[in-house]
């Protein structure tokens, strides 16, 4: 299978990559991933701006237009596991390129839409699939570029989740005002496609494909097989074992509960605050404050998860998100709402960003695409449910009390489910790097696996 120890000892050891350096191609991949996330989340979040122009042009009801958004969210969620598997099977770059092509078609078609069913297909179905294809495979691809310090790479990329919508919603609103909704979609489609298409030229699925070493690589690490027949066969086999772990199913459940918990607040906070007497401007600034403060933990949660273990960090975030939301039961003044925004945004920001790190800690360096795709299915369905609940509850009761209680219940149930996860000290299945090394007919230095799991 391999080479004897004396012969291995004679092989020259390649130089190690410095612990932290900015001069590494992994950061280009992180930047590409961040921009892809920004474009996707920006177009998604700016849908609200589209409602009034469509209502005025076609006379459709806001509810019927909003259904396109709900449909798009569900399509993205349902397509996430497939997108994750495609990323592993065909490579992230190819999968994302198909997503970019569909993004262009979806945006152009939406700009020309003349009926509701067309909107449901162009924005709901085509753009929904496009989103899954260019948002899901990018995180596992970034993980491929980090042998160690994945939390740092993930944290930097996750910051784009907040920055994208913050910048793009303003730009889209300005475009709607100045050139109209159809031209806005054409401009956003063309610019987005050119930017994403250009970035795809820089994107490499794995460091091995680019002839480079991953970030945090040390001379004792075994190289990973990242394509070919052996890779395809073993990744399918390994995924079969992942399906048989508690963590695989429980992490889908946890992501669902966490997203349902915070979606209720994100969608309901402005109507809740105005219902309690705050002006629209004051209410909007609560949401802006939540976005701004959450940037800190979007970055810190994966970094800390890498250092001290994901389970504790995730429990803190879920418990804080659930307990913190109860402040809204008594909040009435702007000051109380702002205090809530600052305190709640800290755990909320870290709710979803540690998942790539916990996947690495549980399943080593195995392909993450299908596992992460399934987790995003849970997240997407949670967001869809959480987004629908506040309005539904208010219509019935004339208050948001039940929505707040449900939000707390979902997040605290997520925190309880985290306690049922195994500690992250050891992988749940023997490390992928060891297995790969055994099956490869190429000599390599023996030693560390490169799996730097932090323990809870």
């Amino acid at each position, binding site marked *: 299978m391999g080479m004897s120890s004396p012969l291995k000892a004679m092989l020259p050891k390649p130089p190690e990559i410095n612990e932290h350096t900015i001069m590494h191609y992994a950061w280009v991949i992180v930047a590409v991933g961040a921009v892809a996330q920004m474009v996707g989340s920006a177009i998604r979040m700016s849908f609200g701006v589209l409602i009034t122009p469509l209502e005025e042009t076609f006379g459709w009801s806001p509810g019927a237009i909003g259904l396109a958004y709900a449909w798009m969210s569900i399509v993205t969620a349902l397509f996430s596991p497939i997108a994750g598997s495609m990323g592993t099977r065909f490579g992230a770059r190819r999968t994302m390129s198909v997503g970019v092509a569909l993004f262009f078609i979806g945006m152009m078609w939406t700009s020309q839409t003349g009926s509701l069913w067309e909107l449901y297909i162009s924005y709901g179905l085509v753009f929904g699939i496009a989103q899954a294809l260019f948002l899901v495979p990018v995180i596992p691809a970034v993980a491929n570029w980090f042998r160690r310090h994945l939390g740092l790479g993930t944290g930097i990329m996750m910051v784009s989740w907040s920055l994208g919508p913050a910048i793009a919603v303003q730009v889209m609103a300005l475009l709607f005002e100045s050139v109209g909704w159809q031209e806005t979609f054409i401009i956003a489609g063309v610019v987005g496609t050119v930017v994403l298409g250009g970035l795809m030229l820089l994107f490499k699925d794995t460091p091995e494909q680019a002839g480079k070493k991953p970030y945090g690589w040390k001379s004792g690490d075994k190289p990973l097989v990242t394509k070919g027949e052996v890779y395809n066969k*073993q990744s399918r086999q390994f995924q079969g074992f992942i399906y048989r772990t*508690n963590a695989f199913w429980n992490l889908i*459940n946890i992501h669902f509960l966490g997203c349902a918990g915070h979606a209720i607040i994100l969608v309901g906070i402005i109507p809740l605050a105005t219902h309690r007497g705050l002006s629209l401007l004051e209410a909007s600034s609560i949401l802006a404050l939540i976005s701004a403060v959450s940037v800190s933990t979007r970055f810190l949660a994966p970094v800390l998860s890498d250092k001290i273990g994901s389970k504790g960090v995730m429990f803190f975030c879920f418990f804080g998100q659930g307990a913190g939301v109860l402040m809204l039961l008594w909040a009435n003044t702007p000051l109380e709402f702002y205090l809530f925004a600052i305190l709640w945004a800290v755990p909320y920001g870290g709710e979803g960003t540690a998942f790539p790190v916990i996947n690495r800690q549980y399943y080593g360096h195995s392909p993450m695409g299908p596992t992460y795709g399934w987790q995003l299915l849970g997240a997407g369905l949670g967001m869809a449910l959480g987004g629908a609940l506040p309005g539904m509850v208010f219509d019935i009761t004339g208050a948001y009390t039940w929505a707040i209680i449900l939000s707390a219940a979902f997040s605290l149930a997520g925190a309880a489910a985290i306690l049922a996860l195994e500690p992250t000290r050891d992988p749940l299945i*023997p490390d992928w790097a*060891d297995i790969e090394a*055994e099956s490869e007919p190429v000599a390599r230095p023996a030693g560390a696996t490169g799996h730097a799991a932090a323990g809870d």
Partner: protein
Amino acid sequence: MSQILRGSTGSTARSTTDIADVWTQSARRRPWLGLGLLGISIAFTLAVVIYFGAWSASEKVQARQAAEVDPGAAGKDVSAWEEGFLWACPLH
């Protein structure tokens, strides 16, 4: 080359050409715990949606009944989604 694989329990297992054997022996598997918790969440979510959906349907039906001169006629206007929620919820 023989290779020692470290299992999660700290024990060691010698690899064979059939890697799946090693994974079978060493993997920590408790799928029923995760599936059970996911099932509880789905059941809770369905209960919440059905309860609030039926509550909403019940309110709408009552509002229409109150507005009708002939209360018996209001029942004819119950839409399919209202009927579905009211049928599914044992509390409404």
